[in-house]
């Protein structure tokens, strides 16, 4: 009986603390053996024999013992589990019951939390898609790298991911064999199908190595081979995305071999990519076409042209021996410095970065919308804090109302620990409902935000706004919010002193409670101020941006030209004359006020030409200037103001009557003739050419974007263009009468379509062009304002409930004061002043926070400083007004307290 005796003695005492299976089994078996031995001795055996006999009768003690210990242990664990589960179930049932008893509070808390969580989840779901999710379908996306290089733009140095083909070739050979490389063109909108069935799809030019590098397999068919992708001899074949194949090509294998009509050319479908893969950009691609089949533009083929530089480069270093990022960067720099890749000698100081396949994680400039989204994420988390504060407020009020219930429970012997669990279960249940609602909000809100923030992106079907990360975060945040909001009320509840609580009515106040609630009001007020200041700043920025002059009559200008899929030199030669005839006809069309001709429609492109000014160009650097050739009506049509001198004379018949004159913009005048009068100066277009006299200076007009350095520009007369201009492009710029813009747009489209059979009329109003540029500002203003107002409402509710509660607590006092003759306005003043004092602290804190946080949004503002005193004052006064209004109701009630009722309450 060795083992039993050897069991350490102290273990026996453990069972006083917790059940000890082994000790109990030992006791039981030992009792049995002892009884048997004693009986044997009583029957006359010697002690040794007695013992031996007992053991023989018993059998294998060790085995039995072990079996029993294991059994009892299992039993114990499962009993505990069942007990825990049933306790939880009980808690949940209890929680649900008590939530059902207070439906108003339940709905209030769930809605508040759901709102706070929902906006966060929607925002996170957007950021998740943009920043965290690698492109679907790519094998080991973490190993695929994207290449960036620093480029000097007019606006400053920026990381850029576009390269020319010669640069790619140099990089590829510099990287060697243990780094796979591929390039591609981001999906571009292309016309698919013929005539009436034509629709826009997104096609991406990629080389054969693209699919291989990304580890994509064809779902059916095949991908193109290197032979089909030789520069200069690309095969007209295409690979479709799975979704495009399903939705547009019938979705069965017979689609293979089908002819696809794409922007005027025929391609044969040879394969479909694996489901889910839509390229490596946010924009989903429908078709992939061999890079080599990209048409050559201009005189130099794109694969030799340094100026065709929109190719994105992807790398996949060999798993083990592949170089790390810094080594890759060094080799790429070396490659870019080889003579074949060098564009200009000045570019030798290349800075290269290798980054994630997820574009937004790279060093490049983020879209303004994405920048706004990251700031908004801060805003939404503030909204959540405010929501939590309100929930705490609601739960605190409830905790006070429940003091008696809790005291009763404590009195009948429910432990505080158990009670805490019950109360926490309640707030967790609330949070859980809220988290569920938040997941829904993330789904809808995420889709909505995407549409708002990046409306031009065609999202892949697979890129659902819901991702396990979003759901997990929603649950975690929900539970976190539930615990945080539950903590203070639970502590308050458990502090309940039995006797006091059982004796007193509901109306006896605790200084502690009101302090906690005042703190909450301060927090809410402060955070609301921060959000409202943000809203104010963004709204001002938007106004400033909207107020910018563009040089164009935004509401009434429409411009149109024509594009062709296939070039035709004969038609090109006739184009200018056709447009001139069109302009003459359209001047009399209904709704049209005036029509002008321009070589390039504004913002659609620009021309450059060598020019020779009449002043010493070694002393005054010749600026980079672009030109446009325009008919005399141009300035009247666009609304561009003539600042000095005059615009082109209106010659009755046009043609030879137009003198050699030129109109420059202000930027050109300042850059070319600084400190001089530009009027009367000369521009020549060959060193010995005619002198084109500057007859006028016009305002700087928008060149490509709202916020840009003014671009030097000059305008040549349509009817007297220098010979050096070369081929004459043409487009129409029309001014519509008020309210007739759409009419004019349609008329232009129809007329151009008729005049150029087979061409694509491209007609836009200036507003259509400009509106997207306002969008980021509009968005910032709208979303900040929406969240600010949301916060304000929540804060106002908080203030209201705090004041209402305080008033209810002090009913007795107010009754006495009324009885001894206090006037209504005295009490009103006292209550409102009390509330304003608290809110004023919050406002002060909030303004300090807003000033401190201003630098995070400074870059997104225009024409206003983050610490703008006007905005601060406006918000501060606004919040104090709201606080007064919120306190007014309860204050009024306080003033109307009937002394008799108030005193009888006790």
């Amino acid at each position, binding site marked *: 009986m060795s083992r039993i005796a050897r069991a350490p003695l102290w273990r026996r005492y453990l069972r006083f603390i917790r059940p000890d299976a082994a000790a109990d089994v030992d006791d039981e078996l030992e009792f049995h053996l002892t009884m048997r031995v004693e009986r044997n001795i009583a029957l006359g055996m010697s002690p040794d024999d007695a013992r031996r006999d007992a053991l023989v009768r*018993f059998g294998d003690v060790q085995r039995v013992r072990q*079996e029993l210990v294991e059994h009892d242990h299992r039993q114990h664990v499962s009993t505990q589990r069942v007990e825990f589960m049933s306790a939880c179930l009980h808690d949940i049932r209890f929680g649900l019951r008590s939530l059902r008893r207070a439906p108003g509070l339940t709905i209030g808390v769930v809605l508040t939390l759901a709102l706070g969580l929902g906006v966060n989840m929607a925002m996170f779901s957007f950021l998740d898609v943009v920043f965290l999710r690698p492109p679907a379908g790519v094998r080991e996306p973490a190993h695929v790298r994207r290449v960036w290089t620093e480029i000097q733009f007019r606006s400053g140095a920026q990381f850029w991911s576009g390269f020319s083909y010669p640069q790619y070739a140099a990089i590829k050979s510099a990287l060697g064999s243990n780094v796979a490389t591929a390039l591609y063109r981001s999906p571009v909108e292309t016309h698919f199908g013929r005539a009436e069935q034509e629709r826009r799809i997104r096609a991406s030019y990629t080389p054969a190595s693209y699919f291989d590098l990304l580890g994509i397999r064809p779902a059916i068919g095949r991908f193109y081979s290197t032979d089909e992708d030789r520069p200069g001899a690309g095969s007209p074949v295409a690979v479709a995305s799975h979704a495009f194949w399903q939705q547009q090509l019938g979705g069965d294998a017979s689609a293979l071999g089908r002819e696809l009509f794409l922007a005027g050319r025929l391609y044969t479908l040879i394969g479909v990519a694996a489901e889910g893969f839509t390229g490596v950009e946010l924009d989903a691609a429908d078709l992939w076409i061999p890079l080599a089949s990209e048409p050559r533009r201009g005189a130099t083929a794109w694969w030799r042209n340094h100026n065709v530089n929109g190719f994105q480069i992807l790398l996949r270093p060999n798993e083990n021996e592949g170089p790390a990022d810094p080594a890759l960067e060094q080799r790429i720099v070396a490659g870019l410095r080889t003579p074949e890749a060098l564009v200009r000698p000045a570019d030798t100081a290349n800075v290269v970065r290798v980054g994630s396949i997820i574009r937004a994680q790279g060093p490049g400039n983020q879209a303004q919308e994405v920048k706004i989204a990251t700031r908004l994420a801060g805003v939404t988390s503030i909204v959540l804090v405010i929501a939590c504060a309100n929930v705490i407020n609601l739960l605190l009020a409830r905790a006070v109302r429940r003091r008696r219930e809790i005291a009763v429970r404590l009195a009948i012997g429910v432990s505080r620990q158990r009670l805490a669990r019950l109360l926490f279960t309640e707030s967790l249940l609330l949070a859980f409902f809220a988290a569920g609602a938040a997941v829904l909000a993330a789904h809808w809100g995420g889709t909505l935000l995407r549409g708002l923030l990046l409306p031009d992106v065609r999202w892949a079907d697979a890129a659902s706004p819901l991702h396990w990360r979003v759901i997990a975060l929603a649950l975690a945040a929900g539970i976190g919010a539930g615990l945080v909001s539950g903590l203070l009320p639970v502590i308050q509840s458990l502090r309940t002193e039995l006797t006091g609580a059982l004796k007193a009515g509901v109306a006896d106040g605790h200084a502690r409670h009101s302090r906690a609630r005042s703190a909450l009001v301060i927090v809410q007020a402060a955070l609301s101020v921060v959000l409202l200041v943000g809203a104010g700043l963004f709204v001002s920025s938007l106004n400033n941006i909207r107020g910018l002059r563009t040089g164009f009559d935004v509401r009434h200008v429409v411009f149109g030209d024509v594009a062709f899929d296939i070039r035709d030199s004969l038609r090109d030669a006739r184009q200018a004359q056709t447009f001139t005839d069109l302009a003459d006809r359209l001047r009399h069309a209904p709704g049209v006020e005036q029509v002008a001709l321009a070589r390039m429609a504004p913002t659609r492109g620009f021309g450059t030409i060598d020019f020779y000014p009449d002043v010493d160009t070694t002393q005054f650097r010749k600026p980079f200037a672009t030109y446009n050739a325009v008919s005399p009506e141009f300035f009247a049509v666009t609304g561009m103001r003539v600042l000095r001198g005059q615009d082109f004379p209106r010659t009755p018949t046009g043609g030879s009557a137009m003198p050699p004159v030129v109109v420059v913009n202000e930027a050109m005048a300042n850059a070319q003739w600084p400190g001089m009068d530009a009027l009367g100066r000369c521009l020549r277009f060959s060193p010995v050419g005619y002198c084109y006299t500057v007859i006028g200076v016009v305002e700087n007009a928008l060149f490509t974007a709202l916020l840009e350095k003014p671009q030097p520009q000059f305008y040549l007369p349509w009817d007297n263009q220098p010979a050096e201009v070369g081929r004459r492009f043409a487009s129409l710029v029309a001014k519509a009468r008020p309210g007739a813009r759409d009419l004019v747009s349609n008329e232009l489209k129809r007329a151009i379509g008729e005049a150029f059979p087979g061409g694509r009329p491209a007609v836009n109003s200036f507003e259509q062009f400009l509106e997207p540029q306002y969008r980021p500002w509009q968005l910032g203003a709208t979303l900040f304002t929406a969240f600010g107002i949301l916060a304000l409402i929540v804060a106002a509710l908080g203030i209201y409930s705090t004041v209402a509660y305080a008033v209810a607590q002090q009913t007795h006092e107010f009754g006495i004061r009324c009885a001894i003759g206090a006037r209504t306005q005295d009490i009103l003043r006292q209550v409102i002043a009390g509330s304003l004092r608290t809110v004023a602290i919050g406002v002060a804190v909030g303004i300090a926070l807003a000033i401190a946080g201003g630098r995070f949004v400074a870059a997104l503002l225009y024409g206003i400083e983050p610490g703008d005193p006007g905005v601060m004052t406006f918000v501060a006064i606004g919040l104090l007004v709201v606080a007064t209004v919120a306190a007014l109701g309860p204050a009024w009630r306080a003033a109307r307290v009937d002394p008799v009722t108030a005193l009888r309450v006790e």
Partner: protein
Amino acid sequence: MPVQQEPGDLLQGTLGILILKALLLGSAHGYAVSRYIEETTSDVLKIAEGSLYPALRRLEDRGWVTSEWGLSENNRRARFYTITAAGRKHLRSEAEVWLRYARAVTRVLRADPSVA
């Protein structure tokens, strides 16, 4: 861990019935149960006393028996087992099966020419 049954030992489940029968007299600890079986069968069955305990656990798992710690007749800490209502019911039905079976076998063995 099933208890091994030597050939010729009790049929599976039989021990359970004996234990339940022992407990019909009232709550008892394991030793008392084993003494009861020993006395009533005049020690014919030769049950390894150790096998009693796993059998008791099994009865307990099925809800036929409950147990609690108490003091034995000589003031020692001992675990006492009590038969439950379900246990009684089970015992009745099992006993009936057993007795019918035994009577049938007896009849066969007593039939002419009787072997006993």
